[in-house]
């Protein structure tokens, strides 16, 4: 290697034989939890175990959109806090996260959808999150490239406009949190695979890895798309999760035409223009669970059709890159954050589906509180695993819960 610069998070430390906490998964949720554990709770003897490299999974595969206009009142405050944390973390981590709060425009394509948006806006306003309902003409004023004519498959009726949302450089937040965690003494072990979790008398005692055994009283499962398989294989705990591939792609770079995040649930497409000028756009999930991150022409066609109707100026623009990532979907589209109950010292932070990116900082902060005290903070209590047994699913989807893997 000719490279003279050092890694932001220093050289990889040798794996110790014991840690106060072991975090499985070197993605955003794992790194954020490690960072806040070390910074705020004095638990600095922490290892983050990552099978591949930091940010290999969903952390580096999302479309970098952040927002706090979710549907239920249990969810909104968490995302609101995350949104408020980006500028603070930019300073604290001394790392430019390239947060661009350009605002999100969620397009609505029917009167029923407008009614749903009305409720979302009311929820947002109740929690002090800026969100407005606007009509098609106002959409056009905000995004002149938008096609508001009636002759497209799903004409635009209006939108939910959420000015504080936007985009955040996804790799920057991975590297920034890794740097911050390492500065506080956290050990980041890349290319280290967890092969088992040791439990004795209902308590966590160790984590087995391919580099050796680690004694620890606390484990956090923050393995993203792999968390449910890990939970079942290593601890026999089944989770209400289906793992689906979600594909995204970028076009060739263009001059600035889109200064808002535009998304449409009906077209199953969302798009934003990156600072490089590419239109980054994501699709709906593939409809069957799997662990590949393969991509298909099916979704290139799907995105091309959706974008060329919503934003006709993109017709003829070429896609440059196309990738897939894993989304661990729960039936109610809300995450599972629970722990210290089924097995003492075992915590889980999973089931984020495609919401893991926008929530990572705030979740890490509260998971760190949870792990250090053993008591679930109020903010995370609604996200317990037992809600599925109690049939108290959250209403993050506006439609009825249905039992398909991709709702």
């Amino acid at each position, binding site marked *: 290697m000719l490279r003279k610069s050092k890694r932001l998070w220093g050289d990889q430390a040798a794996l110790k034989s014991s840690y106060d906490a072991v975090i499985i998964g070197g993605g955003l949720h794992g790194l954020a939890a490690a960072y806040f554990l070390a910074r705020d709770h004095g638990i600095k003897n922490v290892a983050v175990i990552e099978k591949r490299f930091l940010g290999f999974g969903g952390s580096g595969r999302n479309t970098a959109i952040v927002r706090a206009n979710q549907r239920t009142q249990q969810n909104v405050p968490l995302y609101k806090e995350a949104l408020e944390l980006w500028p603070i973390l930019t300073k604290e981590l001394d790392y430019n996260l390239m947060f661009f709060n350009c605002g999100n425009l969620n397009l609505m394509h029917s009167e029923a959808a407008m009614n749903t948006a009305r409720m979302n806006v009311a929820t947002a306003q109740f929690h002090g999150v800026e969100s407005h309902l606007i009509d098609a003409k106002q959409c056009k004023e905000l995004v002149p490239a938008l096609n508001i004519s009636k002759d497209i498959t799903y004409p635009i009726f209006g939108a939910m406009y959420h000015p504080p949302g936007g985009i955040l450089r996804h790799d920057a937040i991975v590297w920034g949190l890794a740097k911050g965690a390492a500065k506080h003494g956290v050990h980041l072990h890349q290319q280290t695979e967890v092969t088992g979790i040791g439990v004795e008398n209902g308590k966590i005692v160790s984590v087995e890895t391919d580099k050796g055994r680690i004694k620890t009283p606390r484990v956090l499962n923050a393995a993203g798309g792999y968390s449910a398989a890990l939970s079942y294989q290593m601890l026999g705990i*089944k989770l209400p999760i289906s793992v689906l591939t979600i594909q995204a792609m970028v076009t060739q770079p263009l001059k600035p035409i889109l200064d808002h995040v535009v998304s449409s649930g009906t077209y199953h497409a969302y798009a934003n223009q990156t600072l490089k000028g590419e239109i980054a756009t994501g699709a709906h999930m593939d409809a069957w669970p799997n662990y590949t991150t393969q991509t298909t022409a099916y979704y290139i066609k799907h995105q091309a059709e959706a974008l060329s109707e919503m934003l006709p100026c993109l017709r003829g623009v070429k896609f440059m890159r196309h990738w897939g990532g894993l989304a661990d979907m729960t039936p109610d589209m809300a995450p599972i954050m629970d722990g210290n109950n089924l097995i003492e010292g075992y915590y889980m932070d999973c089931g984020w589906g495609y919401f893991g990116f926008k929530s990572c900082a705030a979740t890490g902060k509260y998971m760190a509180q949870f792990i250090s005290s053993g008591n679930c903070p109020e903010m995370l209590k609604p996200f317990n695993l037992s809600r599925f047994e109690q049939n108290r699913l959250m209403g993050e989807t506006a439609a009825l819960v249905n039992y398909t893997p991709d709702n």
Partner: protein
Amino acid sequence: MALTLTCPVCGKRNGYEFRYGGEEKGPRPDEADLTPQAWCEYVHMNKCVAGIQKEWWCHKDGCGVWFTTHRNTTCNLEVDTPEAQS
């Protein structure tokens, strides 16, 4: 991603013609003495196997038949003889 499934009626077809129906979890639990835990286990809980799993499919855009098959979730290929490979 690409997927080809073998419908027992129509033969090998494109995966996008089918609707995934979940992991095979055995028969529906008996409603007598059914606990919320047992119902939740049957309805919501998944093993999320990274490997070969037995699962349900419906040939939605075809003959409409429901059937089970084995598929390797790490390479997205249907498997004929799961016992030999698992």
